[in-house]
Structures are given as structure tokens and as C-alpha cells.
């Protein structure tokens, strides 16, 4: 029960790490904050709470994708109309 959630958490962490490589403020900045955020919630054991945190992480994934897309779109629109 907690094991399958553990796999999900690890997968979420890997996805965020992968996306964070292109973070505008620097990949290191993002990675430090990511580790701090995950370490802060290290001791949570209630599956409900874990699921809620996972969905919060997935929200951040979507936000990052939107951030990257908008950044690229705006830069290209400025250059190429």
C-alpha cells in the first residue's frame, strides 16, 4: 500500500528533476528547492495526505510545462511575429 505510493513519489521526483533542468533561474536552484520540499514531507505516512501531496506535485509539473511553453512562445512571437 505504502510501497506503490512510494513508487509514485519517486516517479514524481524524477519527473520534476527532469523538468527542472531548464528552469530559468538555474537547474541547481530548482534542484535544491525540490530536495528541500521533498525532505520536508519525508515523514508523512497517511496515504490520503501522500496522495494530496502527489497531486500538488503533478500540479507543479503542469505549471512548469506551461511556463516553458509560454516563455518559448513569447520569445518566438517577439522575434518572428
Amino acid at each position: 500500500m505504502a510501497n506503490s505510493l512510494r513508487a509514485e513519489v519517486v516517479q514524481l521526483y524524477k519527473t520534476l528533476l527532469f523538468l527542472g533542468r531548464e528552469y530559468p533561474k538555474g537547474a541547481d536552484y530548482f534542484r535544491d528547492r525540490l530536495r528541500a520540499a521533498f525532505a520536508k514531507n519525508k515523514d508523512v505516512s497517511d496515504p490520503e495526505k501522500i496522495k494530496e501531496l502527489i497531486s500538488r506535485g503533478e500540479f507543479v509539473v503542469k505549471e512548469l510545462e506551461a511556463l516553458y511553453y509560454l516563455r518559448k512562445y513569447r520569445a518566438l512571437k517577439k522575434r518572428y511575429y
Partner: protein
Amino acid sequence: MSGRVLVGVKRVIDYAVKIRVKPDRTGVVTDGVKHSMNPFCEIAVEEAVKLKEKKLVKEVVAVSCGPQQVQETIRTALAMGADRGIHVEVSGKDYETLGPLQVSKIFAALAKKEQADLIILGKQAIDDDCNQTGQMTAALLDWPQGTFASEVSFEADKLKVVREIDGGLETIKINLPAVVTADLRLNTPRYATLPNIMKAKKKKIANVKPADLGVDVCSRLEVLKVDEPPQRQAGVKVETVEDLVGKLKEAGRV
């Protein structure tokens, strides 16, 4: 109608990187600089994958020309949903002089060989800004072209393309097979997620040489020099209109 789409992707210097000119003025610094897929090519791949998801085409083939490193770009296209890749190996001196004419010859030969129905390209590459490859490919194949496409749809046996032109939007209907070049607002390219990248490692990338396709890649152009644009001069603030007129007369502009 084999339902095959060829998508051209180009490996260029990432759009967010600050470009530096080489000290000997022959080109731009490319060693150690972050490269990625041309943004317009990403939009082209996304459009092809969308067509496949709507079951309007059967297979999406990603094609790129260049040295070994372009395989990463082809893998990104495969991770976005292309079925297989073709790597046309061009390296060293030939790669430095590879231009739209040579690439469009390669594409024309590949389209005939793979019996493609549709070729989707990005409208231009952000490094050379040629905006020629799509048009040249269509001309070499004698296929109709829908360039600067902001919307592509199938209507019966033809392709309806909404083009972005200076005056607004132009809708044209062209016969298949055709060449389409993607503009910025065609779609929103998806982000290649880690599981898709893992799956893409299993997809095949075929290796082809231009000589196998019967294409001669020697260029008829020679780059004489590459320069940075002139530095922007600081502006000057003046107090009154008379000052402004005086300064303009000094500069010889009045």
C-alpha cells in the same frame, strides 16, 4: 495513399542561448553550446502526431540531416510520438555548408523513396532564418505547398490549410500529396515526458547517406564573414526643442 507523413526536424542552438560570434569571424560558436530542436520543427512534429492520433495518417517518420548528434533531436521527435526516424548522415565540412537547397533535395529523394503523402516542416530555422526548405522541397517534387500554416485539416481528399499572411488569414485547399510548413500558432507542442523518452529508445532510427539517395550535397554558397550587429549607441536626452534641432543639425540629419 500510404498515410505516411515525413517530418523534418533540425538541431539548432537553443533559442534561449546568447549567441557569440567566433573570433575569426567565420561563424557562430557552437562547441559546448546547448542545442535543441528548432521550435518550429517541434510544432511540425506535434501536428503530425496529432494527425496520427486522429487516425488521419498512419505513420509519422522524423527525418534529420547532420552529424551523430542529431540523433538526440530525432529521439526527441520519437518521444513526442513519431513512429520511426531517419538520420541522413552529413558531417564535417559538408554539414557546415549544408543549406536549404541540399536539404530539400534530400527530402525530395526521401519522399519518393518512402512514398510519403505529406511533408510537414517548420517554417524556418532559428539559426539561419532561411524559410526556404519547405518551398524548395515542394518545387522539386512538384507538389502543392501550404506554408505558414496556422491550421491544417483534411477535407474529403484534399487538405484545407489556413495560412497566416500579412493581410490576415488565407484559406486554401490543396491536393495531396503536399508540403506544409508550420507557423507559430499551429498548435502547442507537447513536452516529451520521461516514460515516453524511455519508450522512444526502442524505436528505430535508420541511417542513410546522401549518396545513397543520389543527392549531391556540395554547396554553391560560401560564407565570407559573420559579424555581430552593431552595438546600440546610448540615447541622448535634450531639454528643449531647440536643443533637439541643434543636435540633429550637428549630426547632419536636418
